[in-house]
């Protein structure tokens, strides 16, 4: 293992993060508060995600959301908090159908589909038109997990947070794996 990587365990004590409660999972991560806020703006989304099985969430950090230019559709979705279709589309593009822990992502790309289907259309534009949802590329570059999306945007997984439960209502054991290098720097 390279020195840039660290594997750490943490027990989340004193908080109630029941299995299947996506809001509580996100709330346990302070650097995901923007995402949590955006999820809350879309009616029913938290419930839909909590009820879902076989999905994987790629969660932009607060810094990631802050860095998006506000003159592109993604930035407008973040900025205009009244356009729940655009926000919903943006978030749906980050929820992948299927279970993708880092261990199944290899240097041979996987093109995985998300929940962003053709139903997301606001007065400006539709956001995707693929049967079964928009695609994004998952690929490993060295030890780093990278996501390549539209416009050749490269995202690096900086931290993978896994929640393990002994029983559905017990406090989870949280396994955190961090990486500090960047996919775009190596690519």
């Amino acid at each position: 293992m390279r020195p840039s990587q660290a594997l750490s365990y943490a027990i989340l004590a004193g908080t109630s993060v029941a299995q299947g409660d996506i809001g509580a999972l996100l709330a346990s991560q302070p650097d995901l508060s923007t995402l949590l806020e955006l999820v809350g703006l879309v009616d029913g989304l938290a419930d839909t995600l909590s009820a879902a099985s076989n999905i994987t969430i790629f969660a932009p950090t607060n810094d990631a959301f802050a860095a998006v230019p506000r003159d592109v559709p993604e930035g407008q979705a973040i900025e205009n908090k009244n356009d729940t279709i655009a926000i919903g589309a943006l978030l749906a593009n980050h929820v992948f159908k299927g279970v993708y822990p880092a261990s199944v992502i290899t240097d041979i790309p996987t093109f995985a589909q998300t929940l962003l289907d053709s139903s997301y259309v606001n007065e400006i534009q539709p956001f995707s038109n693929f049967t079964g949802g928009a695609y994004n590329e998952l690929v490993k570059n060295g030890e780093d997990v990278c996501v390549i999306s539209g416009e050749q945007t490269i995202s690096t997984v900086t931290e993978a947070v896994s929640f393990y439960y002994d029983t559905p209502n017990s406090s989870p054991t949280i396994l955190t794996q961090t990486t500090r290098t960047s996919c775009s720097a190596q690519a």
Partner: protein
Amino acid sequence: MLGSGITIHKIDTVLSFGAPFQLFTYRPGYFAMNAALEAAQLAIDFGLSGPSATGLNISDFTIFVPTNSAFESIGSVLESADQATLQEVLKYHIIPSNVIFSTALGNVTVKSLQGADLVFTVLEDGSAWVNGAEIVYANTILFNGVAHVIDGLVLFLFHSR
């Protein structure tokens, strides 16, 4: 319900939506292919259908985009071609209703929008070819399809009878 062992991957950059085809050709400057599609009235519609929509309203497609220099090398041939011929040539660069990423390519044939088969070849060095053109930049995810940039036009294969 989200089960035990669920992983949330934190990422440093927000994922982008796929661009419509025209925007994709504009940014890196693949103007020749877009111009040819416009001239042939095969411009890929941005998902907007209706009485005023012209061009090709399709989704889930795979398109091969020759570089500008590929078009330049056969420019005089295309300039003298009529629209019907141009349409046939360009339709041979599109696979309808089939999103094919490079990882799914092997030594296979796939029917094009034109009707004739495209023949894919993957060599031992990893290079991928469609008929005689090499895929030089693969897997750009679009709004409604995937684009692969190729170094030449896909030419029809003539079978001896």
